[in-house]
């Protein structure tokens, strides 16, 4: 039977402490003052699409592994485009074959688990990438502002059992409106927690799990890992009602990153698989106007599988956002004054973006067929002073290359939603130079000679037309090596 081949997660580096939120908004909602832990937040240039790209890169670290991907599903309730295939942008950024079937899955917090079930059920030739990410907004002072997080995950599935084979799945469709968000609204409208907990989670989920276990003729007690994102007390109740051992429950990461939306069950699944031994049963639950339950059994490959970035590593790579109002500004809920420089028209020439989409989305440079010099952008005539010959250059993907900082500045004059705008020239390990913006650098952090990696981020937002354009930016290799 089909199974999970690999996975990857993305937790944005920025975290805001619930204390910071409570200190700012406790006047309105006193319960916020006692909230503990922290939540993950997107930098200004991160969104559901960029997180999906980052998680997918982690799931598909080798370019050769990407050649097997034939289908791309992107699940989210906060896709940047309502009508422009977000999953196709994802596929472009990953440099996938243009013959891939790509589509977006949305409409419910169950989108990712539903997509995963569909991918596993229909796997044929080649692999399917199921990516999921959410950047849900919340009104200042709401419970969701503290409890939500931003993040994403990607699971690669195929017809091979892989590291975790699908054993059974069961679904329940139920128009149980615990919350809703209208198409043209930024915020959720949430119903009473007690009702959601008792009539929703603690009723619908156990019923579905029992149905699955009965159908599959699996003893509840044999479940080694129960992946469920509900609050611990609710999860314990569900486990108890379904007859599953309480110690099968895994940490829902509420204290470290918050509930990250559609991708959260997949992040927790990754966390469970990282700790699973061969031959263990892993039960994944998705909840949102119904229930998805997917039962996996890990294979012998699980013990040798090394995720390129473990959930714990992603959680450890953090930087605290101490400015509550900057967080609000990044979320777009606090319109600050960016000055006249922000008025520059960022209209995208789509004709050019299409003509050069390999350069911009796949970050493809060129390698001279005469002298081998790597250059960005790919050019018709080689840039090497000793060559300068015309000819079709071989495309060379640069996104997974590391590079070294040659020059940089922290520009306080240029418009940036998070001043200063940091940018510079970087030299690729493979050769070639790129003049790019930097991501995730704080003032005083960049150094000439430091290595950087590249991340797919928002480059500009066209404030007149709403279009968002993306490009690759140079980011620190490892936050552990730099100060906060």
């Amino acid at each position, binding site marked *: 039977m089909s199974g999970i081949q690999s996975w990857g997660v993305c937790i944005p580096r920025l975290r805001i402490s619930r204390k910071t939120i409570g200190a700012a908004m406790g006047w309105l909602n006193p319960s916020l003052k006692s909230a503990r832990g922290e939540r993950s937040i997107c930098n200004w240039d991160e969104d559901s699409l960029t997180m999906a790209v980052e998680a997918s890169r982690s799931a598909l670290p080798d370019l050769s592994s990407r050649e097997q991907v034939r289908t791309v599903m992107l699940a989210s309730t906060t896709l940047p485009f309502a009508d422009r295939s977000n999953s196709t942008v994802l596929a472009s950024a990953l440099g996938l074959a243009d013959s891939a079937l790509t589509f977006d899955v949305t409409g419910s917090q169950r989108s990712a688990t539903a997509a995963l079930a569909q991918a596993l059920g229909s796997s044929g030739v080649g692999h399917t990438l199921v990516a999921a990410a959410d950047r849900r907004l919340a009104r200042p002072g709401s419970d969701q502002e503290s409890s939500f997080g931003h993040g994403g995950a990607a699971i690669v599935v195929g017809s091979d059992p892989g590291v975790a084979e699908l054993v059974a799945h069961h679904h329940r469709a139920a128009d149980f409106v615990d919350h809703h968000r209208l198409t043209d609204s930024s915020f959720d409208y949430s119903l009473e927690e007690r009702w959601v907990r008792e009539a929703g989670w603690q009723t619908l989920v156990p019923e579905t799990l029992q149905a699955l276990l009965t159908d599959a003729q699996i003893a509840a007690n044999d479940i080694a890992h129960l992946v469920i994102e509900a609050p611990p007390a609710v999860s314990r109740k569900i486990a108890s009602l379904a007859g599953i051992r309480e110690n099968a429950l895994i940490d829902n990461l509420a204290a470290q990153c918050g509930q990250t939306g559609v991708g959260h069950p997949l992040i927790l699944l990754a966390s469970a698989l990282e700790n699973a031994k061969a031959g263990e049963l892993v039960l994944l639950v998705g909840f949102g106007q119904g229930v998805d339950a997917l039962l996996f059994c890990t294979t012998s490959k699980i013990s040798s599988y090394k995720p390129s970035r473990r959930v714990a590593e992603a959680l450890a790579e953090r930087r605290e956002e101490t400015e509550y109002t900057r967080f609000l500004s990044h979320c777009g809920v606090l319109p600050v004054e960016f000055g006249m420089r922000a008025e520059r028209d960022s209209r995208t020439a789509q004709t050019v973006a299409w003509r050069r989409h390999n350069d911009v989305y796949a970050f493809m440079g060129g390698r001279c067929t005469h002298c081998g010099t790597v*250059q960005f952008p790919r050019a018709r005539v080689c840039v090497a002073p000793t060559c300068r010959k015309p000819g079709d250059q071989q495309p060379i993907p640069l996104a997974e290359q590391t590079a070294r900082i*040659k020059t940089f500045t922290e*520009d306080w004059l240029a418009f940036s939603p998070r001043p200063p705008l940091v940018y510079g020239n970087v030299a690729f390990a493979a050769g070639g130079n790129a003049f790019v913006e930097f991501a995730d650098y704080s003032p005083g952090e960049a150094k*000439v000679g430091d290595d950087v990696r590249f991340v797919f981020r928002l480059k500009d937002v066209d404030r007149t037309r709403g279009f968002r354009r993306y490009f690759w930016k140079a980011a620190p290799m490892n936050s552990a090596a730099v100060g906060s």
Partner: protein
Amino acid sequence: MASGIRDKVVILGMGCARFGERWDCGADDLMLEAFEEATRDAGIERDQLEAAWLGVFYDEQSVSKSALSLSMTLRLPQIPVSRVENLCATGTEALRGAAYAVASGACDVALAMGVEKLKDTGFGGLPERTKGTFEDLWQPGFTPPGAFAQLGAAYAAKHNIPIDELRRAMAHVSVKSHANALHAPKAHLRKAITTEQVLSAPMIAWPLGVFDCCGVSDGAACAIVTTPEIAKSLGRRDAVAIKALQLVASNGYELSHADWDGAHTPTTRRAAARAYSEAGVKDPSREVSMMEVHDCFSITELVLMEDLGFSAEGHAPTDILDGRYDRDGRNPCQTDGGLKCFGHPVGASGLRMVYEVYNQLLGRAGERQLPSPSLGLTHNLGGIPNRNIASVSLFGLKTL
């Protein structure tokens, strides 16, 4: 081998508007202010002009695309007028057009005008503009100070100089130019400053503080050029002759090739070598009496002292702190205050530099006059360090 432009063209007259925040003036007023001075100086009538070149960079900002603003403002006598633009080397580009026209024999008397009306944006600094439809998709949303500031980080790393030490030398560049501008009546910023003021000023783009950046100014400057023979026929005995006009445009090496270190401008080095060759200069630090270089930012001037062949590699900071480039130093630089203080109306700057050299060579520089200079250099760096236009020009006195 081409014979070059050396001594084939002389400057008959020059004019320069007062630079600054000229809230009272449009581009047309600025051009007229410069032109009236130049025609008085040249001693010719407007109808003797046979061709004209207009240099303006931010056309959308002031005069629109064509050359018509020059011909219509001056009511030129229905002659060929062309608009040129080559980033911050635009003014020099206008002079090249006029000089080559005269040298070729296409016309006897030609006008080069550079102008920029920058202070109609409503905000400080240079106007925001697109960098190109493809470039906007990937290049940083940089500002000029941010683009040039990177020279500082790269230079400090290359020569292993602590950034604070480098900033002290950069500060002296600005202190020197402010001191010089006190004696330049048409300069934009005429106020002495101290090193401590520079170092403690608000940061614009690390490591450039506000005093490391040149003025954003309105202004115009122009030159009327002719042949030595015609100048002599008009009664001139000594004239300022063009000794060299060289210009190099980046070919993408700095932007796309891994080898460029980000701490020097290869274009300036190439243009300087060609200009020295064209003018027959063997040792610039001995033969060049003065220079006006593209000090858009303090770090630019520092790096240029090496690129132009004055300071040895890695020695510009100490040479600067030793006063070598002060007005009373061995190689006076920016005697009128430079871009830093005289101001930087982009299209006019190349010609403003020539105006200072011209006045110094003719002994007309007033309180800032150098003792008997004989050869002056002007340099522009248009664009930004990783893709630019560098021009190096030399001017000397010629007995007709």
